[in-house]
């Protein structure tokens, strides 16, 4: 791994929900003591099922929301210790592309205004030709500048979302399921675009997805999350899983190849409620390798070389 650009230590986020009988406050830990390092130029994937805390992690890393605990360091600067003004300056160096290109673009603004917005937020003058250059970088014609979001297709809108994220020439970009609402023929276009932009602008990506196949194609290293915590870090896309959950995820994704058809042995049950999690390993209730120890104690993430796994009985 190259020199770390982003370092995350013990990152934790609790949410409080009033609910239940008599409006009692309940708290849940959406992200639990996450440690993560992203080297400059790397594409690190974060994979897991819905609700496992991927988007919360994304927003924490960019400090769009406040962590309950933990530290985030960007290129040696501790983001958690910065004053608001200093944080705003650092924010220029990082940005995010959201999942839904429909709700993330304000329908009242023309594309040119949407692309100028990051400069307005930062109170910085926008260099001339910026809009044209950005449109060109994401493969859209200059005439797009005068259009409105509703006139564009889903794929074109996501290109605008990407152009906006790159407007201030960041070094680090979080991609939060950027293709999840697009059809596969457009998904592949967007992945190809992200890949060429990375080469061209020397970007570092944190790529979030629920699609293990896509993550294995696009990413150098893969972080697997279950119920808010990292359960495994695969050192490369080819490495075979050691955590029973990662292994189940892999076995649950069907390849587009009828000759690879197999008997499905699905994981039993569903993801438990994040409120009132029992003690021990969060996966214990569904795990085929569970032992008594797993129900009593929570396994911590242990690294062996670049491969880290949080399991008492790894494969």
């Amino acid at each position: 791994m190259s020199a770390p650009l982003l370092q995350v230590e013990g990152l934790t986020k609790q949410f409080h929900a009033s609910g239940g009988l008599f409006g009692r406050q309940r708290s849940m830990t959406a992200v639990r003591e996450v440690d993560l390092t992203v080297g400059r130029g790397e594409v690190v994937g974060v994979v897991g099922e819905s609700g496992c805390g991927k988007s919360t992690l994304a927003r924490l890393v960019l400090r769009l929301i406040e962590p309950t605990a933990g530290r985030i360091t960007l290129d040696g600067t501790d983001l958690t210790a910065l004053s608001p003004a200093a944080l705003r300056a650092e924010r220029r160096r990082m940005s995010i592309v959201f999942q839904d290109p429909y709700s993330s673009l304000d329908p009242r603004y023309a594309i040119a205004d949407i692309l100028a917005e990051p400069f307005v937020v930062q109170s910085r003058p926008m260099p001339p030709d910026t809009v044209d250059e950005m449109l060109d970088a994401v493969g859209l014609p200059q005439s797009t500048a005068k259009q409105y979001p509703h006139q564009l297709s889903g794929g074109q809108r996501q290109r605008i979302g990407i152009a906006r994220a790159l407007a201030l020439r960041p070094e680090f970009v979080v991609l939060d399921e950027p293709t999840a609402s697009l059809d596969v023929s457009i998904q592949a276009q967007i992945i190809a675009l992200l890949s060429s932009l990375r080469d061209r602008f020397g970007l570092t990506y944190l790529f979030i997805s629920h699609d293990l196949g896509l993550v294995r194609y696009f990413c150098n290293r893969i972080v697997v999350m279950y119920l808010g915590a990292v359960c495994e870090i695969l050192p490369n896309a080819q490495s075979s899983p050691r955590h029973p959950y990662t292994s189940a995820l892999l076995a649950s994704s069907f390849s587009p190849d009828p000759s690879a058809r197999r008997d499905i042995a699905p994981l039993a049950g569903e993801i438990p409620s994040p409120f009132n999690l029992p003690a021990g390993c969060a996966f214990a209730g569904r795990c085929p390798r569970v032992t008594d120890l797993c129900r009593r104690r929570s396994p911590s993430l242990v690294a062996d070389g670049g491969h880290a796994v949080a399991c008492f009985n790894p494969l």
Partner: protein
Amino acid sequence: MRNAMVQAPASLIPFQFRTKAPAPHFGQNGQAMGMLDMRHRRRKAEDIADKLPLDESAARQTTLRLDDHHQVGRIRHIGEQVDVVSRLHLGLSAQTARLRTLDLLAQLRIPEPAAVAEAYPHQLSGGMKQRIVIAMALAGEPDLIIADEPTTALDVTVQAQIIQILTRLSRDRGLALLLITHDMGVVAQVCDRVAVLYAGRIAEERAVDPLFATPAHPYTTALIDCIPRDGMTPGSLHGIPGAVPTSGRYPPGCRFNPRCASAADLCRQERPLLRPLHHGGAVACHFANAEAP
């Protein structure tokens, strides 16, 4: 917009047809037909059911959907919602219907069927709701089930559970299954035959093995190349240029022509008809190696 489906966890819309024989287009009993459609259109299953050649008693066909918000009066619990199907279609008494319901829930490996039957839909997880809708579909003893994006709103590990159930149903009970999905992996895993739709028309219709091994339509070929697979070299995923046309704005000729690498003048002028292929199946492309019309 695929996102809209998250609001409808019970997106399996089964139909039941009291047909003498399933419509020939869907093959024999026990066969699973896939309809691969990248664009999600609501009520697709209803449209298809309208067009199916069904016998007299098909007048009794029902669209089944788990009712989260019963319009009149109270919300009905799970048991009642399943019971009503077999009471209506098989004329069972309330008691017999409930016994059947509990039996079906057990067959679908729903833990504690009796307790679940007394629960209300909002108390169940997405995967559990989907099983209940399948139970409702089975309650009327249909010959054919149309499942419209049955796993799209579910997580992959739960999707695998539902796919396993659907596969077993078609294999073990001799049910014909029409699975409408945008997921190529699911089609490859479940279906015997596949119709590939593009912009509302069938581009290609084949048995599943030759479809993936030697796709005949340029759209099918391009689509297969859009899915990341193990061992693929980085940078080999390109996608299909352009975007799917919205209905009402279809180009003349072949609807795929603006995105097709092999398009010629003929493709921009004339609509290619669905022609049989030498080794079975059919394709709608001027340049595919099909038999003359």
